[in-house]
């Protein structure tokens, strides 16, 4: 098992129970989609699997190691083998795309090489190849602030492709793209995963995309797994229960306004 979660619970600081006892086993090379209504805990689950967040209780095992029992340095080394695509790619607006993509390998590079890479990109062909797979080869030297939301998402994916992790987690990786591009991008991800025997777990908004591209589907609702079954066995009723009474308003994302207050003298 490359990913295993036992009775995983996650309690956010704002009092929300994001995950309430999730059991999950994912084998090497599997491709899994997580679907569910907004606020079901999809992002929380992916962050837990990426070892980005520590479960409030429960046991997590990733690549045969228990990340929260490791010293910080070894945990960082383990994290370098896991890639997470964020829904809103956290890229500084004033960073060049080439730097943003090359940053994928920071976990594998020494500090010296990382800083040198800021002065002059050390692996321009590598970054160009990763971007070219997502049809963004021409944006290599553009600034992140010049790109649209969908293009930024593809830069985020290119970063993780360049990182070449053993586990690839993707949190709504195609939410800002049109349906055709979304399908194309997902097939690139699953091709990459198949070619390199990478475990792929993605949360998706669009059920049709999930059913079309992933052999295994996990339905998440209210922080619990409602069903976990092969894609061909997912029935209309299962989906109806999953999305029943879904509140139409999407949860407000807690983004505190940045207050810049700097004393000047």
């Amino acid at each position, binding site marked *: 098992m490359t990913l295993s979660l036992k009775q995983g619970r996650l309690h*956010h*600081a704002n009092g929300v129970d994001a995950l309430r006892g999730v059991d999950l086993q994912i084998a090497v090379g599997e491709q899994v989609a997580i679907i569910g209504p907004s606020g079901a805990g999809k992002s929380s689950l992916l962050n837990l699997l*990426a*070892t*980005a*967040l*520590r479960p409030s209780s429960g046991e997590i095992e990733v690549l045969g190691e228990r990340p929260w029992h490791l010293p*910080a340095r070894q945990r*960082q*080394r*383990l*994290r*370098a*083998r*896991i*890639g*997470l695509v*964020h829904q809103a790619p*956290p*890229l*500084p*607006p*004033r*960073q060049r795309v080439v*730097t943003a993509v090359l*940053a*994928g390998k*920071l*976990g*594998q*590079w020494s*500090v010296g090489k*990382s*800083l040198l890479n*800021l002065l002059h990109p050390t692996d321009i062909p590598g970054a160009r190849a990763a971007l070219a797979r997502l049809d963004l080869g021409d944006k290599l030297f553009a600034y992140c602030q010049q790109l649209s939301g969908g293009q930024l998402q593809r830069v985020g994916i290119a970063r993780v492709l360049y*990182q070449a992790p053993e586990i690839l987690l993707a949190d709504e990786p195609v939410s800002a793209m049109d349906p055709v591009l979304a399908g194309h991008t997902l097939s690139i991800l699953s091709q990459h995963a198949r070619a390199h025997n990478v475990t792929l777990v993605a949360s998706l908004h669009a059920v049709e995309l999930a059913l079309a591209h992933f052999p295994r589907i996990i339905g998440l609702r209210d922080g619990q797994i409602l069903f976990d079954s092969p894609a061909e066995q997912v029935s209309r009723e299962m989906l109806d229960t999953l999305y029943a009474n879904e509140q139409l308003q999407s949860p407000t994302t807690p983004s505190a306004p*940045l*207050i*810049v*207050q*700097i*004393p*000047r*003298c």
Partner: protein
Amino acid sequence: MLTADSRDPAAAPRLLLTLLAIALLWPGIQLSELDLGVLLHSDSQTEMGRFISGFWPPAHDHDFLQLLLKATLQTLAIATAGMALALLLAVPASLIASRALSLSAASRSGIPSRLGRLLRWPVRGLLIFLRSVPEIVWALLFVRAVGLGPAAGVLAIAITYSGMLGKVYAEIFESTDQRPAHALMQAGSGRLAAFAYGILPNVAAELLSYTVYRWECAIRASVVMGFVGAGGLGQQIDLSLRMFASGEVASMLLTFLILVLGADQLSRLLRWRLT
């Protein structure tokens, strides 16, 4: 007088606040022994008038200009060397003191662990200590230790400004979007690399403009410290004031104006290049 339809409900609080402000300011004026009447006395007016009338024409003979050039260069050198020394201490201290580089904060939704917070305190304390003593006091101290001359000014600026720069840098790092750096640390990168890739691109312009502004302040501070014998333009102004050479004072004040103007333009140029 005030009919019901022209009444403003905010009028009474405003009047009250104004009265309160005056009531608070009055003792302040008394305590600082401010008496503007002194300026209107005829003898002080003629005294000031004589001094100011000497401002024109500013001194511009060859020997004085040479002296002025030397003093100006010395002032610039004091400010620049002081800032360079201050940066040596301020940059590492700000990186340690800032919560932006906390590895534990990345996986605890932005709140560092208790141990991390505990370890940041001594550094914050050091920065507070360094900047709480005014540079003029350090200058007086160093004039006794290393003797009259620019070295005392350089050391005084280095110490006070490292405290200020360190504190403000740390706050600038924290005031920007933390998600890029957190995402990098969650993908296994080290703190320094996460800082360089996740935070620095966002704050570079702000850091630069603050540093240039501080350099400008250091120029001014080095002039003030000149009065206690730390070299540069200040020492020259002090000498000229004592000799009632108002023309020389005028030239030096003009030089001063040009220096600050130059710093301002430099900051604008650098900001324009970076944004």
